[in-house]
């Protein structure tokens, strides 16, 4: 794999290309360098105009970080913990159930009638309207009631010989992935209203661990299923077939053989999901207030609160960025050529 596309180039054009890549690299790295350097500046080091090199241009200080830790600029320590807890648990749950679903889609056959799917949606919608408008239930009650009824009816209907096309595994996968296309604002806003109405019934979901994690799990699942399916497809089926001959149950094949064999893929998926949850802004903005606030919200708030206190802003941004920088390092080690390949086919 050497020199594709560049083989015909003269040494000079090669140098030109290298220069271009170098330029892009500088553009990529400069803002990162800037934020790291600015976080160690004292107020005079900022206000006097741009300065670049510590000890030469300005005297570095740890004061911004001490301020952060002491909570002068908001509950950073607490928020950092929140982000970590929510991020790790949402990524772990999403990876677990997403991997299970992906495995099922690769190795088992599913048949869903389109009619049953449509019926589910219409029954859920109709049931909700019926319960809410005529029987006078509150909206969440109506939804919670209509959902299982529609689901059970759809499962039963799936066994009946309904007319219309039958959807297979590929279609189910497409349904999963297409959830990603959904503009999150549609969900975030409705979820906010729903959560707050459920809250009025006595079960608090807004600004709670359960509410936020549940929402993140649902929104990470499409990516997890998509990525994990490719990892599982790459596993040779012969190993599993050998185990099946010995009558090993499917769940033991999954946990004992498939999971260990795709550990790399699971780890990479876990990290990608973690990064997604860690950086997520919109849902956290809608669904949290203070107790379960996550880092992006606090960091975004720094802007309006402290106009030009760049040292503080930089330190805050660094707190949000550094864990992901470390992860990028770990991830790039795992991303030897083939890792993400399947994902794009």
């Amino acid at each position: 794999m050497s020199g594709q596309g560049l083989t015909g180039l003269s040494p000079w054009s090669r140098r030109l290309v290298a220069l271009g890549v170098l330029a892009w690299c500088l553009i990529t790295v400069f803002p990162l360098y800037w934020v790291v350097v600015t976080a160690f500046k004292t107020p005079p080091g900022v206000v006097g105009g741009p300065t670049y090199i510590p000890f030469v241009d300005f005297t570095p200080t740890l004061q911004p970080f001490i301020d952060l830790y002491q909570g002068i600029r908001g509950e950073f320590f607490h928020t950092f913990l929140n982000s970590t807890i929510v991020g790790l648990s949402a990524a772990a749950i999403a990876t677990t159930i997403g991997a299970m679903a992906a495995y099922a889609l690769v190795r088992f056959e599913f048949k869903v009638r389109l009619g049953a799917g449509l019926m589910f949606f219409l029954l859920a919608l109709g049931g909700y309207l019926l319960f809410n408008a005529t029987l006078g239930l509150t909206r969440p009650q109506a939804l919670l009631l209509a959902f299982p009824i529609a689901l059970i009816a759809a499962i039963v209907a799936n066994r009946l010989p309904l007319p219309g096309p039958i959807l297979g595994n590929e279609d189910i996968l497409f349904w999963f992935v297409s959830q990603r296309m959904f503009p999150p604002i549609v969900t975030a806003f409705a979820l906010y209203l729903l959560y707050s109405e459920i809250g009025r019934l006595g079960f608090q979901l807004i600004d709670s661990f359960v509410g936020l994690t549940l929402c993140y799990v649902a929104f990470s699942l499409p990516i997890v299923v998509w990525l994990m399916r490719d990892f599982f497809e790459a596993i040779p089926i012969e190993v599993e077939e050998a185990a099946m001959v010995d009558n090993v149950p499917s769940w033991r094949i999954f946990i004992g053989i498939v999971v260990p064999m795709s550990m790399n893929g699971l780890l990479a998926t876990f990290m990608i999901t973690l990064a997604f949850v860690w950086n997520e802004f919109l849902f956290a903005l809608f669904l949290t207030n203070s107790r379960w606030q996550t880092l992006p919200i606090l960091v975004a708030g720094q802007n309006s609160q402290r106009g030009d206190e760049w040292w503080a802003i930089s330190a805050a941004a660094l707190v949000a960025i550094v864990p992901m920088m470390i992860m990028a390092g770990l991830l790039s080690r795992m991303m030897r050529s083939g890792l993400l390949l399947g994902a794009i086919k």
Partner: protein
Amino acid sequence: MMRNDPIKHVFIWPAVLVVLAISIFPLIYSLTTSFLSYRLIPPIPPRVVWLGNYVTLLQEPRFWNALFTTTLIALIAVGLQYAIGFGVALALNARVPGERLFRVALLLPMLLAPVAVALVARMIFNPTMGPLNQFLAKFGLANLPFLTNGHWALACIIAVEVWQWTPFIILMMLAGLQTLPEDVYEAAELENASAWQQFWGITFPMMLPISAAVVFIRLIESYKIMDTVFVMTGGGPGVDTETLTLFAYQEGFKKFNLGYTSALSFLFLIAITIIGVTYLALLRPHLEKRR
């Protein structure tokens, strides 16, 4: 070989249930709310207005402005990302000197929180104390109104988008380039095809399916842009940089105009679907011809 074992339901149902619950609940909820006139502040009891909210929205210049702004950001940003990303991926694949050093650094931006990136961008684009101003001042372009003029602000947001998401294109295109068969290039080499001819004759057509997928993903994601704009300009100056998501947020979370916001988010959903379907329909003939 496909197995058929009742345990398959245990495997797939948890994921299906969670996604169903979190996607169907809000869908039904906002679909029904979008036909109501329903405000929380001041509290007015909901009243059925059928398509009233949609009609108001379609006549609202602010909606069209937000749709135009979002489309502009998405198209320009993704175009630039693709051009730069493909170029860098080609160079990296050709083992440019120092290539290993570049890899980690080049992938970093896409893993960073857009909010934090936007904060850093605000510092860099500062018209008096920022490093970019200092750099441009050397060319006699001091104190440009980076974030206070509508056109400049849009350009800055696009620049940040390109900075953050080009790595994604690089990553995907690099992975794709590494699957291309070598013998085709060897044959082209024998024919004395120039690098330019090789690119347009072999690399580009063979990369078309991957390109289509990558651009599609980025396009859809770009339409959701919110956090970068929220921090960098807040939609300002005026509403010059207001995107669809930000508009919906302002209406829903600041004014608590529920029916209106639900209708808005549904129009957004319809717009995204139209864009997605058009894109796929436009590309399909090209993709199938190559196979």
